[in-house]
């Protein structure tokens, strides 16, 4: 029983259950807080629950059709503009928070990517991931997403160039922290 409980991860729902309880109690108790917050919550929730599953199906399909294993052989061989193209493509097919990109940056470094391309990779990873773009278009609209992407692309490519210049004679290296 306890194992099943952990498997579904019901423990993660403790906070939201508490929240619901407070809302329930505050109504008969006569606090204005309960109904107002409850209305807010329901408004946000009902809007999202309708189309979030569709977005995640789309993300799952992208993941199934464009595995990043297909991109990886091309990484690091070319440190020029072709290399830039491949690291951006690799970044677009990934998901997760920025700190998940650091170990990949280490691998790129090991494989011989240029400093510029490694920092371009970090920029692309943080702002151009396909799953993230799906969400952005869904929630903030195509116009915003397109505009932000078009403005962001040159900005982080420029950051890549600045970083390469800055690190030129500094014996820069990327280390893999060892877990203790």
């Amino acid at each position, binding site marked *: 029983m306890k194992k099943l409980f952990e498997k579904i991860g019901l423990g993660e729902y403790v906070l939201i259950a508490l929240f619901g309880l407070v809302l329930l109690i505050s109504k008969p108790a006569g606090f204005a807080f309960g109904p*107002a917050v409850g209305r807010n*919550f329901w408004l*946000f929730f009902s*809007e999202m629950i309708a189309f979030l599953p*569709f977005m995640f199906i789309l993300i*799952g*399909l992208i993941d199934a059709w464009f595995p990043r294993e297909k991109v990886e052989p091309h990484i690091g061989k070319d440190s020029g503009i072709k290399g830039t193209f491949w690291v951006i493509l690799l970044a677009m097919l990934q998901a997760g928070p920025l700190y998940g990109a650091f170990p990949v940056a280490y691998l790129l470094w090991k494989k011989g990517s240029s400093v510029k391309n490694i920092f371009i990779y970090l920029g692309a990873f943080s702002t151009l991931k396909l799953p993230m773009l799906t969400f952005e278009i869904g929630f903030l609209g195509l116009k915003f997403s397109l505009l932000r992407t078009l403005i962001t692309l040159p900005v982080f490519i420029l*950051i890549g160039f*600045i970083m390469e210049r800055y690190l030129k004679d500094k014996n820069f290296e*990327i280390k893999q922290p060892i877990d203790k």
Partner: protein
Amino acid sequence: MLTIFIFTSIAVIISFIADRDKTKKGIIKGMKMFLGILPALLNILALVSIVLFFIPNETLVKWLGKDSGILGVITAAVIGSIALIPGFIAFPLAAILLKSGVGYGVLAVFITTLMMVGVLTLPLEAKYFGMKTALVRNGLSFIGAIIIGLLIGLIM
């Protein structure tokens, strides 16, 4: 909202015709990801509902609205740099803020700093790149995010 529904349906149909197994795998993976973020999403929605109850709309618009200018952009940049919010939750949150009157430029800065600048993850980043390099990268990204936000604020 209808767009995403139609788009996903078409994608599923095409994918299914092309390869059944891949489609099944993709849908299952997507649903697993959805269930994975659900508790965090519910928590954030509850938190936002509470916070928006205490902050009147006029205050929010005054600080982060379309006319809040550079001050709004910098406020958003600082919050985005410190906060640790995953993308799947940041966008629903941004949509709520947009409806409450927050400007597009401010949202662009918030999202960009959230993704590119990590004050709390700086120690981890320093382990890979060294502290000085990590600081320079975060600093440049911070400035870049503000430029992006100001441009989007001007255009939209």
